[in-house]
């Protein structure tokens, strides 16, 4: 169970405007990496690029040890229709999709695995509840249970701990740390820099351009953070064309 990732001069964006501009670098197998930076800095866009939801304008994202469809990807919460009449069990069981596909039945083991995953995220006894009857924190736990079932060597999390209380945050960080111990590669978009320093060994600071990438304590120094802030998140209609085509200096 080891998956690695390499960016080769990757530019991702919307309507010709780059959100991630000429990014190169590699994520080693089993790494626990935080992606940090200002709003509009391209963090979520980068995850979409890895997950294959968004195709790069140029360059490529190279995956090793995992197929793109097997990546477990947790987007920002707003994408789920919570009003849909579905039980917690059914939502979590979707994590079995790569095993069951459209028609495969859930075996006893798979059934137990769902309940087990729910226990692991602290939601014992929630299986039959509707997904519309959950708090924000409980729902995030449900999504983590689904990720657990996906059993993927590479896990992408987009702001997984935003707007959670301390206990929920601590529980879910425990899950992430377990993934890390199991040797899975985890890339998470983060805003809480103290949390990043505590939990994530490595960080990538992104403000459309790459600002710094390396050990979290080195990356998150005042100077780098200031650079990231001044690079900002502009999106000029009158921006000039980018003529950059050459190799990136290491």
């Amino acid at each position, binding site marked *: 169970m080891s998956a690695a990732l390499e960016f080769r001069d990757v530019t991702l964006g919307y309507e010709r405007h780059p959100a991630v501009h000429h990014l190169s670098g590699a994520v080693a197998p089993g790494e626990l990496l935080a992606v940090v930076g200002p709003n509009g800095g391209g963090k979520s866009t980068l995850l979409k690029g890895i997950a294959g939801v968004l195709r790069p304008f140029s360059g490529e994202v190279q995956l090793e040890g995992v197929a793109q469809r097997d990546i477990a990807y947790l*987007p920002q919460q707003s994408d789920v229709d919570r009003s849909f009449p579905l*039980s917690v069990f059914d939502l979590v069981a*979707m994590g079995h999709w790569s095993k069951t596909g459209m028609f495969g039945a859930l075996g006893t083991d798979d059934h137990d695995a769902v309940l087990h995953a729910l226990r692991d995220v602290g939601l014992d006894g929630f299986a039959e509840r509707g997904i519309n009857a959950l708090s924000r924190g409980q729902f995030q736990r449900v999504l983590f249970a689904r990720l657990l079932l996906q059993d993927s060597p590479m896990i992408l999390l987009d702001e997984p701990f935003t707007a959670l209380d301390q206990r929920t945050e601590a529980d879910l960080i425990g899950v992430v740390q377990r993934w890390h111990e199991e040797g899975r590669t985890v890339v998470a978009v983060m805003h809480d820099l103290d949390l990043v320093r505590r939990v994530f060994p490595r960080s990538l600071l992104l403000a459309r351009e790459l600002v710094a990438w390396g050990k979290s304590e080195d990356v998150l120094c005042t100077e780098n953070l200031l650079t990231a802030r001044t690079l900002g998140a502009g999106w000029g209609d009158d921006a000039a064309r980018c003529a950059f085509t050459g190799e990136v200096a290491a």
Partner: protein
Amino acid sequence: MIWDALIAPFVEFSFMRRALIGALAVGCAAAPVGVFLMLRRMSLTGDAIAHGVLPGIAVAYLLAGLSIYAMTAGGLIAGLLIAGLAGLVSRVTVQREDASLASFHLVSLALGVLIISLSGSRVDLIHVLFGSVLALDDGAVLMLAGAATITLVVLAVIYRALVLECVDPSFMRSLGGRMGMIVHHVFLALVVLSLVAGFHAMGTLMAVGIMIVPATAARFWARSIDRMVVLSVLFAALSILAGLIVSYHVDVPSGPAIILAAGLIYLLSMAFGPIGSLRALKTPAWHYKS
């Protein structure tokens, strides 16, 4: 007395039996499709596609007269075309699907009415717009049953993927492939098929009613989607039965009578259903300790 009112019309007249069977076939297939339309917030999409089939039916009518098979083929082609075009516009331009569908369906409704009035009489127009369930022949009933069978079988096949695509489309996308898009389009095709089948029984304007109204009523009674589907079918069947009987005794068009019966069920559900209804939203007189 009850026999005379409820049973006798179907025993005495074969056209009433055919109407009942044909309409039930339409309702049983359309109501589950309607549940998904509602849950996907596409209720108005059904309406738009229903009008979109009109020019196809009109052209078929112009070429082949009141032939049920020609009109079915024409309706299917036009419906698929309009659903596909609207989807394409929403993908390649900035316009959302509801906006492009609205434009397309208004244009095609105008086109359809124009084509029919080119040759036909006013009676034909009313037949096409409001249907004539009492004039179904054996072939038509068989065709409606066939369409219902196809719809239900295909719906069962794509059920899991469709639910997933409704709840969490981005999760579907992250699973890779074009599964989500394929499921979406197969579902749209089912909507078209149900609407064209419904057109024979209830006309283009009313066909979408038997699809959406029972589904919206079922929402007030069920928390899970499978129960919603079962209830929507029950409500549809009940409205069809009631509508046909009323239209027989009072001599009003059957399509509107059926939809009005469904509307009555909807209003009652909205007022008295256990989930999210007016009654359920009333401030409770007591509450639990925890």
